[in-house]
């Protein structure tokens, strides 16, 4: 087992990793920027290293500085959390070159699944259907047009190195294609990506369903249920819930088998999830694989009782997965709202000081947040995640509806009302909804 893990993240993600480390008796090193020296994650870790100035690129994305921190403090592993460097093959490789274990999948998994067209090819070869689309990543608008003519509209244009709903655009006709292409390419500037794009058929009426899995180094894959993340605004997930409501008969098993096949195709290890689009006809298509702990990992955790972050650390340390069955038993129903700061549209540079904060409580409620009074938050930041677990969907929903009005975040405009609207909407209560439902609402 590791003795000391550097956590290359901040906020709630860093706190989540810290908890798992404490349970395992592993010491923690937090990294922070000069602006975050007093932040919660920096205060709660066993050690704290300031790795650079305020800008993300200079601190939390500053790989040499993070590695120097790990090495000079005697860490033997690095946990990237989720977000930031979590899916960077370059970062994982740099860790391993420095003799530090990377808590996550292998470098090749990050690279293979991070390159969307390549991931499609691999997964398709493993017998999992993908949406009709470009076989190779494309760099020119002319090539994009050629593929578009072949597949037909509407089309989705994605950055090859994007993720989390960034750099995606829908083109309903040839005219809209150029701007969708430009949007996808702009993603290059955000991290380790290239400027290639990827085009595929766009399904208008579909659900977004993910299968959670965990695989150890002996390639034993354990499935931990699915979650439906179809409630999205502008492709950003608002609500995740599991199990998915009213899946067509037999489909759950097929999705699980497809996810396991996708993971097996690359010999995947550690925590991951496989995203599918599920059409009204029951057909389903691989979208991508998330090669990390997911932001909404609390949903499978609530359903199975398995601590995914803890298991991920154990697997990275060479331990076998501790779950006996190939499929963890799922109990009850869980729904999670991801509540964001919601500044005026377009004002991405807005900053707000938190004046009061109260986490809701109650039976079956789990809250994830690193918010503190006095924090200054960005206009679109995730502030708090509130999950409700119950024996049935109705119970989980009732608990979540009762919990949201108890969230107090003074000083910051949030999308709490939007979440309350979703939970109160008969269409959501009836379920299921499509990925386009909320935007059209």
């Amino acid at each position, binding site marked *: 087992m590791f003795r000391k893990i550097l956590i290359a993240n901040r*906020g709630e993600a860093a706190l989540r990793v810290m908890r798992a480390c404490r349970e395992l008796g592993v010491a923690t090193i937090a990294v922070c920027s000069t602006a975050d020296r*007093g*932040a919660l994650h920096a205060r709660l870790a066993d050690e704290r290293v*300031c*790795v650079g100035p305020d800008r993300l690129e200079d601190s939390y994305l500053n790989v040499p500085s993070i590695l120097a921190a790990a090495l000079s403090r005697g860490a033997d592993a690095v946990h990237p959390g989720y*977000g*930031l460097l979590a899916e960077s093959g370059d970062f994982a490789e740099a860790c391993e070159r*420095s003799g530090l274990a990377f808590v996550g999948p292998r470098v090749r998994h990050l690279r293979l699944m991070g390159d969307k067209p390549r991931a499609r090819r691999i997964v398709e070869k493993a017998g999992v259907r993908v949406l009709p689309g470009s076989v190779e990543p494309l760099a020119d608008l002319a090539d994009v047009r050629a593929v578009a003519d072949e597949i037909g509209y509407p089309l989705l244009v994605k950055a090859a190195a994007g993720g989390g709903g960034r750099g995606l655009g829908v083109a309903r006709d040839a005219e809209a294609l150029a701007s969708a292409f430009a949007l996808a390419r702009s993603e290059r500037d955000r991290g380790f990506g290239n400027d290639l794009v990827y085009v595929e058929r766009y399904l208008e009426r579909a659900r977004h369903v993910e299968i959670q899995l965990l695989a150890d180094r002996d390639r034993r894959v354990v499935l931990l249920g699915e979650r439906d993340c179809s409630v999205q605004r502008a492709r950003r997930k608002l609500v995740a819930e599991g199990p998915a409501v009213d899946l067509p008969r037999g489909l759950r098993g097929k999705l699980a088998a497809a996810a396991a096949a996708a993971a097996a195709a690359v010999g995947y290890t550690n925590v991951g999830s496989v995203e599918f689009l599920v059409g009204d006809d029951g057909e389903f298509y691989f979208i991508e694989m998330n090669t990390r702990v997911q932001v909404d990992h609390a949903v499978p955790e609530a359903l199975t009782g398995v601590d995914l972050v803890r298991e991920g650390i154990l697997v990275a340390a060479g331990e076998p997965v501790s779950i006996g069955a190939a499929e963890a038993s799922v109990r009850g129903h869980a729904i999670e709202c991801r509540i964001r700061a919601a500044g005026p549209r377009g004002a991405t540079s807005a*900053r707000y000081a938190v004046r009061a904060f109260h986490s809701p409580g109650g039976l079956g409620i789990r809250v994830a947040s690193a918010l503190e009074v006095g*924090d200054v938050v960005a206009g679109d930041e995730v502030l708090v995640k509130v999950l409700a677990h119950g024996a049935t969907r109705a119970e989980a929903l009732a608990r979540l509806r009762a919990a949201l009005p108890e969230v107090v975040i003074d000083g910051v405009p949030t999308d709490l009302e939007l979440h309350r609207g979703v939970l109160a909407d008969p269409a959501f209560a009836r379920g299921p909804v499509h990925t386009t439902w909320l935007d059209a609402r």
Partner: protein
Amino acid sequence: MSPRRRASVRAGRSPATHAPAGGRALFDPRELGKLVGLMEERGLVELEIEGGGERVRLVRGRVGEVAAPEIEASARPTRSARRSADADGGVRPITSPMVGTFHRAPAPEVPAFVEVGDVVERGQVLCLVEAMKMMNEIEAEFRGRVVEILVESGRPVEYGEPIFLVEPV
């Protein structure tokens, strides 16, 4: 993920030049905390700032035994913070520009680059910071006398951590 920051203030020069930014910076208790920090650091008992339609006046003193509890959770006074406080009489800190391991000498069994009392020239190498197996030379930013060496050789340093106190001469 979007950038999050804790409210903070650039370590200003003096209260006189600390112009409130954005019209509300001063009213933030955290902002005020910084000003109080400055007062403590420089031994001020009273501080008044006016400008941009804002005015702040702070008076420091003792209030019986009321509420002495040392609150330091959010700002565990790090070595750097404490040492900066000493930097009163013109003494200035030299901070590490990178994360790594501090070395006073180029190799074991070899004399240190500098000792307390030495006068160093601008550009003179003061120490090494080892990062990613690279030895990085840290140079004096100005001419001065080394007053104190704040970090033990072989110990890790973080970004911005004061490692020397130097008195300009």
